């Protein structure tokens, strides 16, 4: 009996020893963890590479887009995911030396969480450190959920012409209390520009000279800057992420906090890195797997909707109107008499006109409208308390404060037709009957479907048109063999800002473009390149849903050819555009131009009229009639002009 028990306990003892020696119990050594990780091939996992911001490079290799120091622990970390994995584990297992806030142990919390989950090692099994700055970061964020925010198009600044995107980290709210967006935090990626010179600004922005970094600001700064000072609308897309994905996003943004990328305006811009960060936290969406030569902020939002995930990635959309929108909305809600009084006040800012009203309610209505009016007319009042606008505003506020009534809540309803995610795709290709091909990289002109875009501005990048040379043109060059097709024009960029005059809008309208045109009157293969600038005024008649825009410009063309003359032309450009709906437009433009560099030159006139109809957001059909245009060689000698039919596809 005794022998049996001895045998029993001894065998239990040896079984226990053998279990111990398999080392499947904590605490593990750094070497054991590394071995486990390599056995599981974690260095080849997609999410590991996403956390390191690896992207395919030329010649088939992969390397990280992070160019700053302090992001890689291994000297080869930017191109060797295995080395970086090993170094990361060793670092996380090592003791901190020196200031914790400056040590890597207090930085790589996303990597740590990911490794914990993959290796099935609870986070509390890793050495723990006291990291004051990181704790502070988590405390001030107090994150509940995350939103993707888009601030709308702003043609006054090239960096903002296509809008901007950032994350909003929504802070936890006590139950029963309303959410206060002002106290959230905005984290976004932007270039650290080092020059104000427009030429260098453009050059550096295009070639990656600027460093791009993520910065964290209280969200109220963003509201004051975008909504108030720049008068841009803010659209928030609330993201439906799992608890782990949310945690990974916040931790990963911390990891990126003190490093940088090279900022490329076209394809590695704010929109792109929002997506790379989202992918690192939630790889199931594959948002940044794009190899397009450019990414526009609105495109990144559309990608959020392309997901087939259940539940959908975007769970809610909210709208925050700009000051201009607020004012416009308030003014439109005044009755006829009140509007008249307000216009009289606006002429010379005579407050007494507003105070002559019989009831306090009316005074409050008018004064509240006046406050928003001053904000739109004098945005500097936000920055400088001694500016003329601030002084006028203070007078209004003093008077307003003495009327005991509290202002009623004023809400602007969400304009669904302006939602940026509903805009047509940014690239466009067309086939026309000349025959010809039209191609545009981006973005929008006034004949394209209006939904999702501002209604009086245009931005185009890389728009060119190719057509077949006419028989007569080919004849002229029969001793030179070249392609029967030629590029008729190439707009590098084209921007228009129509600001219809109104009582409140006194700015000029303007258009600018940098282009090449074929000059068939010289030879079928001759080009002139240069710059056009039109300035003038426009007017808008509205009988919703129909609107009619008319405009008159003085145009200046500065072009030069390789062969002969310089072309400095001036002349009027007038036109009208009838928006029968957001999908059906009909317009006409007449241009006159006189070349000042030629003796005895006369005005050359050209007319163009076009109707474009978009049955869906992706397709459009256009009928165009041209007479005497210098941009496109006349294909016939008929004096009746030229009719062209074009079909467009947006993609």
């Amino acid at each position, binding site marked *: 009996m005794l022998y049996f028990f001895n045998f029993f306990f001894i065998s239990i003892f040896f079984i226990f020893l053998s279990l111990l020696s398999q080392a499947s119990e904590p605490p593990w050594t750094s070497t054991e963890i590394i071995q486990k990780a390599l056995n599981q091939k974690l260095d080849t996992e997609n999410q590991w590479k996403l956390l390191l911001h690896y992207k395919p490079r030329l010649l088939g290799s992969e390397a990280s887009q992070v160019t700053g120091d302090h992001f890689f622990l291994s000297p080869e970390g930017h191109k060797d995911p295995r080395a970086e994995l090993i170094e990361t584990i060793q670092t996380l297992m090592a003791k901190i030396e020196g200031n914790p806030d400056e040590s890597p142990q207090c930085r790589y919390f996303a990597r740590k969480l990911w490794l914990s989950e993959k290796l099935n090692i609870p986070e509390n099994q890793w050495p723990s450190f006291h990291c004051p700055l990181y704790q502070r970061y988590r405390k001030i964020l107090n994150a509940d959920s995350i939103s993707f925010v888009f601030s709308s198009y702003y043609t006054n600044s090239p960096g903002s012409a296509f809008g901007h995107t950032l994350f909003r980290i929504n802070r936890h709210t006590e139950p029963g209390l309303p959410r206060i967006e002002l106290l959230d935090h905005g984290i976004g990626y932007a270039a650290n520009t080092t020059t104000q010179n427009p030429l260098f600004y453009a050059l550096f922005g295009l070639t990656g000279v600027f460093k791009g970094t993520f910065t964290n600001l209280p969200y109220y700064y963003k509201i004051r800057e975008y909504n108030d000072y720049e008068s841009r609308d803010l659209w928030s897309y609330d993201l439906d992420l799992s608890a782990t994905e949310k945690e990974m996003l916040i931790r990963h943004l911390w990891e990126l906090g*003190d490093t940088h990328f090279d900022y490329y305006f076209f394809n590695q811009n704010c929109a792109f890195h929002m997506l790379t960060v989202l992918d690192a936290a939630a790889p199931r969406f594959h948002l940044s797997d794009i190899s397009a030569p450019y990414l526009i902020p609105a495109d990144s939002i559309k990608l959020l909707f392309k997901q087939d995930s259940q539940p959908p990635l975007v769970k809610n959309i909210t709208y925050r109107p700009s000051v201009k929108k607020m004012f416009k909305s308030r003014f439109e809600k005044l009755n006829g008499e009140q509007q008249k009084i307000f216009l009289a006040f606006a002429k010379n800012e005579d407050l007494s006109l507003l105070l002559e009203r019989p009831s306090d309610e009316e005074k409050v209505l008018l004064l509240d409208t006046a406050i928003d009016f001053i904000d739109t007319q004098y945005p500097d009042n*936000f*920055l400088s308390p001694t500016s003329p606008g601030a002084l006028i505003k203070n007078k209004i506020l003093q008077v307003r404060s003495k009327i005991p009534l509290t202002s009623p809540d004023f809400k602007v309803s969400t304009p669904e037709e302006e939602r940026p995610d509903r805009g047509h795709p940014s690239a466009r290709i067309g086939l026309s009957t000349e025959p010809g091909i039209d191609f545009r990289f981006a973005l929008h002109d006034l004949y394209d479907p209006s939904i999702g875009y501002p209604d009086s501005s245009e931005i185009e990048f890389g728009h060119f048109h190719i057509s077949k040379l006419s028989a007569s043109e080919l004849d002229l060059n029969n001793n030179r063999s070249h392609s029967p097709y030629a590029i008729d024009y190439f707009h590098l960029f084209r921007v228009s800002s129509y600001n219809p005059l109104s009582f409140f809008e006194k700015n000029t309208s303007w258009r600018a473009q940098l282009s090449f045109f074929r000059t068939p009157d010289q030879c079928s293969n001759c080009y002139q390149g240069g710059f056009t600038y039109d300035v003038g005024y426009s007017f808008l008649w509205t009988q919703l849903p129909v609107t009619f825009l008319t405009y008159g410009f003085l145009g200046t063309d500065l072009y030069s050819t390789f062969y002969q003359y310089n072309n400095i032309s001036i002349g009027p450009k007038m036109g009208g555009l009838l928006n029968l709906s957001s999908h059906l437009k009909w317009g006409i433009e007449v241009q006159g131009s006189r070349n000042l560099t030629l003796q005895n030159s006369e005005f050359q006139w050209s007319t163009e009229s076009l109707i474009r109809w978009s049955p869906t957001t992706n397709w459009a059909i256009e009928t165009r009639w041209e007479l005497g245009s210098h941009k496109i060689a006349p294909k016939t000698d008929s004096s009746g002009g030229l009719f062209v039919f074009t079909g467009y596809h947006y993609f």
Partner: protein
Amino acid sequence: MKNLIFATLVLFSSISFGGHDSAKGKAYSRNYGMAGCGLGSVIVGKRGGQIFASTTNGPMSLYNNLFGMSSGTLNCVDGPTDEVAQNMDKFIIANKAILAAEAAKGNGETIVALANIMGCQSSSTQVGQALKSNFSTIFANPAEHTNIITDGIITTIMNDKDASKNCHLEG
């Protein structure tokens, strides 16, 4: 922190009877500068192409961006603890114009946010009323130094029983 606020309250109440003049200057003195916290520094920084510079010297300046990611304001001085007055200062300096407008009207989102910072969000309506009634004193001079405006706001709210009953002005 509790001692500091309490001492200041005692100091204030022992000096003044009515009027807000005693709230100026000494009552809530700060030993930090708010130079980089205003809206202008954020917008001008973007427009003028400046790289944000840390306002602190020493080891933190080596890790500008890390510090910025943690504190939430690159330019502002920020201490390791959240003191209510400091938070209010930072909030008010960036939101001064809107706060003044909402104070004149008696309500608004920015007032609710300010009340939240002071821990009295549940009495934000009363806070709005208190600011409206005392508007001409607090915002008498638009060019007034922001610290003085903040002091005026704190004083007004604390003097108003309805507004201040739920506030937590300790750190």
